[in-house]
């Protein structure tokens, strides 16, 4: 390690990204949303205490009229629901802009950074980098994510599809496929943390088939961490939305919680889209020749020597 670098330059990527997030969070929660922040804060606290009903004031302490509203219609309609309505409307209008911005950002990155290329002279001299298991996980992740995005958008932009049988089919497969994504996300979590310094990596053949090799650059790591974090929110909220089935009986007890979950789902999906694009960009566009390797599992040795020497180093360590 070089020691003359400052703390900032060492952790530039992390600091910039987290500052960006802080700005985004501030803008979103304090300027853009209309829900009752204080209520949501109290509500989340009460969730951690095991009460998901959102009824923060005991029914006994309310007057008859308030009791009726809370007991029949669920607690505090005016806190989260208007935000859901608004967020939903705005997603339809704003999301295209967000994507346009992201697209532009990546295009600029492409123009300025260009495409990395490895000079391959011996295409047959390949190394097995990804086990079948890893390939399946990584590819499934991409495919499922893309499908979830498309089907998710088919709901959000339902005014374009106009509803009907196909949109209905896409909506319910969104739920099923989303369920299927949860284990994928779990594995990716393990993969993402594999080179963390507190994480003691086990050795052995089987493990090599599971864990990815190599050391990540900060941006890759951020990508993974963010993916894990927002993936967690998405998976959790999506699962709970599916698991807590809305019926007349449980309505009052869970509606506020489900609203919160939906809100979380909206938020996390908007954020994660950036990292998905990042992943795709880095897999497919930024580097040439990576995608075929991801499919077959084998990459030319020269490719690795030029672009990912860390992987080779690690492999040699294993062989010794």
């Amino acid at each position, binding site marked *: 390690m070089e020691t003359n670098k400052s703390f900032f330059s060492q952790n530039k990527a992390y600091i910039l990204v987290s500052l960006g997030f802080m700005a985004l969070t501030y803008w979103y929660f304090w300027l853009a949303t209309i829900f009752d922040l204080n209520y949501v804060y109290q509500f989340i606290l009460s969730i951690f205490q095991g009460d998901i009903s959102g009824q923060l004031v005991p*029914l*006994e302490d309310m007057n*008859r*009229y308030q*009791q*009726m*509203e809370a*007991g*029949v*219609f*669920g607690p505090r*309609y005016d806190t989260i*629901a208007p935000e*859901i*309505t608004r967020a*939903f*409307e705005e997603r*339809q209008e704003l999301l295209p802009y967000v994507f346009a911005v992201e697209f532009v950002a990546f295009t600029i990155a492409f123009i300025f950074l260009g495409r990395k290329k490895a000079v391959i002279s011996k295409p047959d001299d390949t190394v097995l980098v990804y086990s079948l298991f890893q390939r399946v996980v990584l590819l499934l992740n991409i495919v499922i994510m893309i499908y979830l995005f498309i089907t998710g958008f*088919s*709901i*959000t*932009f*339902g*005014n374009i*599809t*106009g*509803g*009907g*049988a196909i*949109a*209905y089919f*896409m*909506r*319910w497969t969104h*739920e*099923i496929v989303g*369920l299927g994504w949860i284990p994928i996300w779990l594995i990716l979590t393990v993969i993402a943390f594999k080179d963390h310094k507190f994480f003691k990596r086990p050795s052995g053949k089987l493990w090599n088939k599971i864990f990815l090799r190599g050391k990540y650059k900060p941006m890759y790591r951020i990508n993974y961490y963010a993916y894990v974090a927002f993936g967690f929110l998405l998976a959790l909220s999506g699962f709970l*939305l*599916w698991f807590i*089935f*809305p*019926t*007349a*009986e449980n*309505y*009052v007890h869970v*509606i506020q919680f*489900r*609203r919160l979950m*939906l809100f979380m789902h909206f938020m996390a999906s908007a954020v994660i889209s950036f990292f998905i694009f990042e992943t795709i960009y880095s897999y497919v566009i930024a580097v040439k020749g990576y995608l075929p390797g991801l499919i077959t599992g084998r990459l030319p040795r020269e490719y690795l020597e030029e672009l990912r020497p860390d992987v080779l180093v690690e492999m040699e360590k294993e062989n010794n």
Partner: protein
Amino acid sequence: MSDYYARMKFYCDEQRCIQCDGCSVACAEAHELPVGISRRKVITLNEGIEGKEFSTSVACMHCTDAPCEQVCPVDCFYIREDGIVLHDKDVCIGCGYCLFACPFGAPQFPQDGAFGTKGAMDKCTMCAGGPEETNSAKERELYGQNRIAEGKVPVCAAMCSTKALLVGDSEDVSRVYRERVAARGHGVLSAPYGWDTAYGNK
């Protein structure tokens, strides 16, 4: 008749409701709903506490600015001129946003998809069917009876055992309720519950 259009409303008089569940069962039976669907439900609060227990029945309130109609991504809702909020099940994709937006928990979802996913939304139609041809077999299958088209009262209010549940033109509902309140002369809520949310401060 003048060109005045009725504004159809429900109101449940909680001083009369005794949670006999007549309305909810009548509704389920009349429209032959699947067991998981409760277009109308009856709730008792403070059960067993002397002087505080009361019951009420709730279904779709057929709001003026129906939030469900606002959030529906596929615009399957439509509001008739008499104020009845209806929706088109063929268009509905079962996403459930209407449930999040509804202040009253009216939208119901059958659990009929694979892995227990939600089916197309179902809710109180005020016995007015749906966009299909009136009184056709398809309409009956999807939305239940169209009693309004037959000139009949919605079945829940008609079968209410204590006549707690009122339905009809808003003027008439409030007249009936006003009469009762005047007769009782005590113990009246400051405003009918849910009306602000459903119909604005009118």
